[in-house]
C-alpha cells in the first residue's frame, strides 16, 4: 500500500505545479528532413556558445522526443544535435525564467557522414556496452543473409551469443537460459506473444518496418514487468510524412508488399506491409523436398505528429501453420493479433511529459492432426499503461502504472485422455519507478523497483539495479553491472521431451502454486580499440524458482499437470566487432550451462534419485557466430557462419505393448502401445554448423524506380544438421538443406 500511495502521490505531482520554477525547460523533437520521420537516439547537447564543455544533454526516444530540464535562464546556449548519417545541427538559444520551449528540428541526410559517435545515454535508449543489452539497428539486421531482399529481426537475433533456437523451425527463442514464455516481446510498447514465424528465418519484423530494437538478455529495468528472462523491445518506424513510397518483393520464401506515405503532410502518416510465404509450394522444385510451412504477417502503423503530442496506432497480424517435424503429421498453428496505440504528450501546460499506451493483444496456438484440432491455448489481453516523469533532486525519475486484463483459454484433448480445460480472466495491476542517477562522469546508477499483482497472486517487490563505470570517463572502456529480481504471474508449458512440438499451454499460476521468479546478475566489460574495433565480454547468472515443467509420462502428450522445478543458468559471452569503411565483421562466442532440478516423484520421471537434476533441451553449451559484410562496386556481400554444440534430447528406451498378465490373455490381447522414454535429456545431439551467404545490389530503373536483387545460399555447404527424430519411426529429421535463392524487390522512391 505504501508503494501505491507513493505512486499516486507522484501522479498527482506530475499533473500539478507545486512550486514555482525559475529554471527553463527545452523539449525537442528531432525528425529527418527527408521524410519527416522521428530520429531515435539522436544526441541533443547544450554547450556554452563556442565552448566544448558539455553542459546538458538528452537522447531522443523512439518518437524523436527528449527534454532537458533545469536550464539556467537569461543566458545564451548553443544547441547541437548529432545523428549518424545526418548533418550536425547547431543553434543559439536563450531562455526566459520558467520558459518551456518546444522545438522541432529537422536534420538533413548526409551521405558518408558517420556523424559523431554515440556518447550519451538516456532513458530507454541504450548505447552498446551496458550489461545484458543489445541495441539492434536496421543496418545490423540487413547484414544477415536471409532468402528475401529485406533482413529480418529474428535472423539477426540468432547471431547473438546466448540466443538459442531449437533449429531452423518452430519460432521459439531461448535467451540466456530462459524459455520462450519467459520472454516479453513489445512492439511500440504493445505486448505480442509469439511474433516469430515457423521458419526461424523470419518474424513479423522485417527491417523495412523496424526503427530499432532493444534486446535485453537479462538485467532489464523496472519498467518491464511480468517477464522472467528477457525483453525484446521493438519500435516500428513511422511512415513517410512527405512522400508516397512503396515496394514489392518476390523470393522463394515469400512475397511482400509495402506502402507508406503522408495522410496529411508532416502531420499524419501511414505505413503498411504484408508478407505471405510461398515456400510450401516452391520448395519441391527448388530443393526437391517438402517444406510444409505456411506463414503470413501484416503490419500497419498510423502516426500523428502534433505540435505537442506524438501518437501512433499499431496493428499487427501474424499467422503460422506448419509441420515442424514433417514425419509427425502434426501441424502447429499460431496467430497474433495486436491493435493498440501509444501517445506521448508534452504540452507546455504539462509539467512533465506523459506517455499512455492502450490496446489489445490476442494470441492462440494449436496443434492438429488429421484435420482434428487436438490442443488449443489462447491468451487475450487488454491493457492500459501510463508512464510519467518526475525529478527528485537531480535524479530524473520515470514511474508508471498499468492494468492488464488477461484471459486464458486452454482446451486439451487427445485420444484416450480426458479433456482438461482452463478458462479464466485475470486482471493484473503493475507499477514501477526508476531513476537515472549520474553520480559523476564515470559513474551512473539506475535503480528501480516494480511490483505487480493479480487476484490470485502478489509478485512482491522486484528491485532492479543497473550500474555503469567508465574508468577513464569516456565510452572507450566501460564496466557495467545489472541485477534484479523478476517475477512472472503466468507460465508456459510445452512438451519438453519433444522439440518438434512447439505447442505451448499458456496458463495462469494456480492459486496453490508459488509464482515463478528469477534473479539475474550480469557483469559486462566493453573496450573500444581505435575507431573500428570493439570488444565486449559479459558474464551472467540467472536463477529460476518455481518454474512449471510438464510431468513426464511414458507416452508423449500434453497435460496441464506440472511440477515445480528450480533452475540455474550461467555463462559468458565474448563479442568482437570490427567496422571500417566498407567492411564489417563481428564474431561472438557464448558458453552457457543450464540445469533444472526437481523432486523426482513430482516429475513422474522414471528416475531412482530423489532429486533429479537435468539439462533442459535448450542447454547449448557452445555457440560461435561469425558475420561479415563487404560492400564493393555497388554490391554488398554478406556471410554468416554459426556453430553450436548439441542440445540435450531424450532417447527412446523402447517400443512396447503392455499386457496386463495374467488378467489379459497374451494370445488374444495385443496390449497397450507405449513409447518409453529413457532417462530425460540423457543424450546430446551432434554439433550444428551452417554457413549462409548472399550478394545483393540495387539497379536504378528510373529516377523513381529501383530494382534490388539478392542472391544467396542458405546452408552453403549442405551440412545435414539434425533437427529432431521421429519417435515412432526413429527417422532422423534434418534442418534445411542447401537452399539457393534469388530475390528481387521493386521500389518506388
Amino acid at each position, binding site marked *: 500500500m505504501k508503494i501505491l500511495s507513493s505512486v499516486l502521490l507522484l501522479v498527482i505531482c506530475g499533473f500539478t505545479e507545486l512550486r514555482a520554477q525559475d529554471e527553463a525547460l527545452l523539449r525537442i523533437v528531432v525528425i529527418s528532413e527527408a521524410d519527416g520521420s522521428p530520429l531515435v537516439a539522436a544526441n541533443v547537447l547544450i554547450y556554452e556558445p563556442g565552448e566544448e564543455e558539455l553542459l546538458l544533454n538528452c537522447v531522443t526516444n523512439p518518437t524523436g522526443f527528449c527534454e532537458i530540464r533545469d536550464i539556467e535562464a537569461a543566458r545564451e546556449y548553443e544547441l547541437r544535435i548529432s545523428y549518424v548519417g545526418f548533418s550536425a545541427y547547431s543553434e543559439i538559444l536563450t531562455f526566459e525564467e520558467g520558459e518551456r520551449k518546444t522545438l522541432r528540428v529537422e536534420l538533413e541526410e548526409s551521405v558518408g557522414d558517420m556523424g559523431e559517435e554515440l556518447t550519451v545515454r538516456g532513458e530507454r535508449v541504450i548505447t552498446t556496452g551496458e550489461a545484458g543489452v543489445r541495441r539492434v539497428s536496421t543496418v545490423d539486421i540487413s547484414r544477415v543473409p536471409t532468402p528475401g531482399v529485406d533482413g529480418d529481426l529474428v535472423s539477426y537475433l540468432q547471431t547473438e551469443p546466448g540466443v538459442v533456437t531449437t533449429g531452423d523451425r518452430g519460432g521459439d527463442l531461448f535467451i540466456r537460459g530462459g524459455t520462450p514464455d519467459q520472454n516479453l516481446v513489445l512492439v511500440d510498447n504493445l505486448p505480442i506473444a509469439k511474433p516469430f514465424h515457423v521458419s526461424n528465418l523470419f518474424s513479423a519484423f522485417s527491417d523495412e518496418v523496424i526503427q530499432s530494437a532493444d534486446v535485453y538478455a537479462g538485467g532489464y529495468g523496472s519498467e518491464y514487468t511480468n517477464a522472467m528472462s528477457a525483453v525484446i523491445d521493438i519500435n516500428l518506424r513511422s511512415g513517410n510524412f512527405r512522400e508516397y513510397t512503396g515496394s514489392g518483393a518476390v523470393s522463394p520464401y515469400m512475397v511482400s508488399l509495402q506502402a507508406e506515405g503522408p495522410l496529411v503532410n508532416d502531420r499524419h502518416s501511414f505505413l503498411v506491409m504484408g508478407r505471405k510465404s510461398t515456400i510450401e509450394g516452391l520448395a519441391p522444385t527448388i530443393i526437391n523436398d517438402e517444406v510444409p510451412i505456411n506463414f503470413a504477417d501484416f503490419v500497419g502503423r498510423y502516426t500523428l505528429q502534433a505540435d505537442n503530442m506524438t501518437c501512433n496506432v499499431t496493428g499487427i497480424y501474424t499467422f503460422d501453420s506448419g509441420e515442424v517435424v514433417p514425419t509427425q503429421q502434426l501441424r502447429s498453428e499460431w496467430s497474433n493479433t495486436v491493435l493498440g496505440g501509444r501517445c506521448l504528450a508534452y504540452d507546455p501546460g504539462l509539467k512533465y511529459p506523459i506517455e499512455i499506451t492502450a490496446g489489445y493483444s490476442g494470441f492462440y496456438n494449436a496443434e492438429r492432426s488429421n484435420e482434428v484440432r487436438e490442443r488449443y491455448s489462447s491468451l487475450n489481453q487488454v491493457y492500459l499503461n501510463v508512464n510519467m516523469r518526475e525529478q527528485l533532486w537531480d535524479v530524473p525519475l520515470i514511474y508508471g502504472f498499468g492494468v492488464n486484463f488477461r484471459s486464458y483459454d486452454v482446451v486439451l484433448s487427445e485420444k484416450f485422455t480426458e479433456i482438461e480445460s482452463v478458462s479464466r480472466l485475470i486482471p493484473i495491476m503493475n507499477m514501477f519507478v526508476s531513476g537515472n542517477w549520474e553520480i559523476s562522469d564515470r559513474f551512473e546508477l539506475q535503480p528501480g523497483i516494480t511490483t505487480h499483482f493479480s487476484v490470485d497472486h502478489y509478485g512482491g517487490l522486484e528491485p532492479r539495479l543497473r550500474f555503469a563505470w567508465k574508468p577513464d570517463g569516456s565510452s572507450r572502456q566501460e564496466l557495467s553491472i545489472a541485477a534484479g529480481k523478476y517475477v512472472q504471474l503466468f507460465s508456459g508449458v510445452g512438451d519438453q521431451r519433444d522439440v518438434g512440438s512447439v505447442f505451448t499451454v499458456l496458463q495462469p499460476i494456480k492459486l496453490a502454486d508459488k509464482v515463478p521468479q528469477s534473479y539475474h546478475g550480469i557483469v559486462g566489460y566493453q573496450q573500444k580499440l581505435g575507431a573500428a574495433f570493439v570488444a565486449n565480454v559479459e558474464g551472467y547468472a540467472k536463477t529460476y524458482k518455481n518454474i512449471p515443467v510438464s510431468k513426464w509420462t511414458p507416452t508423449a502428450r500434453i497435460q496441464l499437470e506440472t511440477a515445480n522445478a528450480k533452475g540455474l543458468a550461467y555463462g559468458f559471452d565474448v563479442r568482437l566487432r570490427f567496422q571500417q569503411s566498407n567492411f564489417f565483421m563481428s564474431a561472438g562466442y557464448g558458453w552457457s550451462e543450464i540445469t533444472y532440478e526437481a523432486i523426482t516423484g513430482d516429475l513422474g520421471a522414471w528416475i531412482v534419485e530423489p532429486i533429479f537434476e537435468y539439462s533442459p533441451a535448450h542447454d547449448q553449451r557452445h555457440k560461435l557466430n561469425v558475420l561479415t559484410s563487404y560492400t564493393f562496386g555497388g554490391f554488398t556481400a554478406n556471410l554468416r557462419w554459426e556453430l553450436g554444440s548439441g542440445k540435450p534430447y531424450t532417447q527412446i*528406451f523402447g517400443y512396447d505393448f503392455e*499386457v496386463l*498378465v495374467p488378467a489379459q490373455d*497374451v494370445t488374444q490381447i*495385443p496390449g497397450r*502401445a507405449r513409447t518409453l522414454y*529413457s532417462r530425460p535429456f540423457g543424450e546430446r545431439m*551432434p*554439433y550444428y554448423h551452417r554457413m549462409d551467404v548472399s550478394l545483393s545490389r540495387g539497379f536504378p530503373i528510373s529516377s523513381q524506380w529501383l530494382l534490388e536483387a539478392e542472391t544467396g545460399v542458405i546452408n552453403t555447404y549442405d551440412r545435414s544438421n539434425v533437427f529432431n527424430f521421429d519417435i*515412432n519411426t526413429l527417422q532422423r529429421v534434418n534442418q534445411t538443406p542447401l537452399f539457393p535463392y534469388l530475390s528481387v524487390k521493386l521500389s518506388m522512391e
Partner: protein
Amino acid sequence: MSPEKFAVWFVFSLLALLLAGCDNSLEPLDRDTGVYSIYGSLDVNKNRNEIRVRDLNVPFNTDATAEIDAAVTLENLNSGLVEALDSERFFEAGVYHHNFIVTQNIEPYADYQLTVTRSDGEQVILTTTAPTYPAPVAEPVNEKCYTPIEITFEPVYETTIAFFIEFQPRDVRKTRLGPFVIRNDSELTGEAATYTFTPVDLMKLVPGTLGRYRCTDLIIPRFEFYYAHYSPGFYESIVDNPFDAFESTQRFGAYYEDQLFVPIDTGRVCPPDCVR
C-alpha cells in the same frame, strides 16, 4: 593470462569446437538398457502357457515386427529340464505380436528361469518360483453366522494370495467382495497364510441392504472363495505401477487359480438376530 597465452587457448578451443563439429551421428534409441519386454504368466494348472516377448528396439511397424530376433528357453532349475520355446505370432494394431509357447507342466514350488537371447548374444533372464499348491482348510465349517472362520493355506513360501468372496443373498444379485490379499513374506517353507472372517461381517456389506442382511438371507448356505496364488512378487508387479521404466516391461511369474466353498449354517441366531 598473457595475450599470447589467451590467443593460443582461444585458437585451440576453436579448433576443438570445429573438430567436435565433424561428428554428425545421432542415436535416438537407448539400445543398452531396453532389449526385450516380457509379459508372461505360468499357470500351474495348465499344460500350455504363452509368454509375450517383444523387441523393445523395434518401432511400431509391420515389416519390422514380422520376425523377432529372439531365442527363448524356459528351464526348470530344480529338475534341469530346459525347454526351447516355439513361437506363434498374430497381427493386431498394425504390428505382429510374438508369443512363445510353454508346453512343460509347471511344478509347484519349482524355480524357473526364462532366458531370451538375441542373435548378438544380448540376453534378458527372468526367474520365478512357482507357488506351492496347498489345499486350503477352512475351520470351523457349518457354523452359525457369528462364528469366525479361519482359512489356512499351508505350506506357502514368500507369497501372495488374492481372492474374491462371492455369495448369493436373497432379492439381490450375487455379491462379490474383494479382492482381499493374504501375504506371507517369510522366506521359510512351511509357513502358513491365514485369513479370518466372520460371516455376519460379510453379510452386512451386501449393497443396498443397509447392513441388515444376515446369514439367514443367504439363498445358498455357503461362501465361495475364488483365489489366485502367485509366485513371489508377481502379484505386486501387476497391481503396483512400477516406477522404473525397465521393470514395467518385465512382468513374468507363476500362479494358479482355484476355489474354496465354505458351508455355513444359515439358521437364525437368537439373540441377537431375533431382536431385529
